[in-house]
């Protein structure tokens, strides 16, 4: 696990681990040299993410 950039985020993670299940995935190859950058949607059965999204501080999830 890499260094966390935000102390509030790190504190949340510590509490989250006690209340939710952390899943893991097989280690991905991070040195393929392939570029993932940039793509466009050709077609989709949904109209994705058109409106604003609700949000709340992560800390509220733990209450």
């Amino acid at each position, binding site marked *: *696990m*890499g*260094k*966390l*950039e*935000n102390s*509030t*985020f790190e504190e*949340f*993670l510590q509490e*989250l681990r006690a*209340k*939710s*299940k*952390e*899943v*893991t*995935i*097989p280690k*991905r*190859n*991070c*040195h*393929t*040299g*392939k*570029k*993932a*950058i*940039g*793509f*466009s*949607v*050709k*077609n*989709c*059965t*949904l109209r*994705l*993410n058109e409106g*604003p*999204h*609700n*949000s*709340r*501080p*992560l*800390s509220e*999830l*733990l*209450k």
Partner: protein
Amino acid sequence: MSSFTKEFADHVSVIVTNCLVFTPDDLSKGVPHAYYHTTNCIWDTGAEITVICPEIAEALGLKEIGTGQIGGIGGEDHEIWVAKVHLGLPSSETIENLEVYVDDIPDHDMIIGMDVMKEMDIAITNANGRTKFTYERPSTRNLDFTQKHNS
């Protein structure tokens, strides 16, 4: 209102941060039952939609809610599927009920796309040999770097 800043040790060619992907449970009942924490999330203004890799979708048991087709720069058009998640951004807030593409992403676990970034003010600076990435959500600013030179 939330904000986040990450300053890298030198100039970087990709902006990578932490991010949480939650199962799309009812958040009024508390914390979702499962999550994935990545330290390998790339922010990509060239991506229209946020993408997670199939391994995350499988580990969280996400369900397909739609399908689509995308075309990548230098790549071939291909089919993908859509899932719903909650995100936990590094600014310590949620993005709820986000529809994401599930697709194999070279070198990274997930891509934050413009569907998330369009709700933010974002800046990338590179002074003093260090790349700094900063954002604030929701968007409130009307930045124009040319104004400093024109005034």
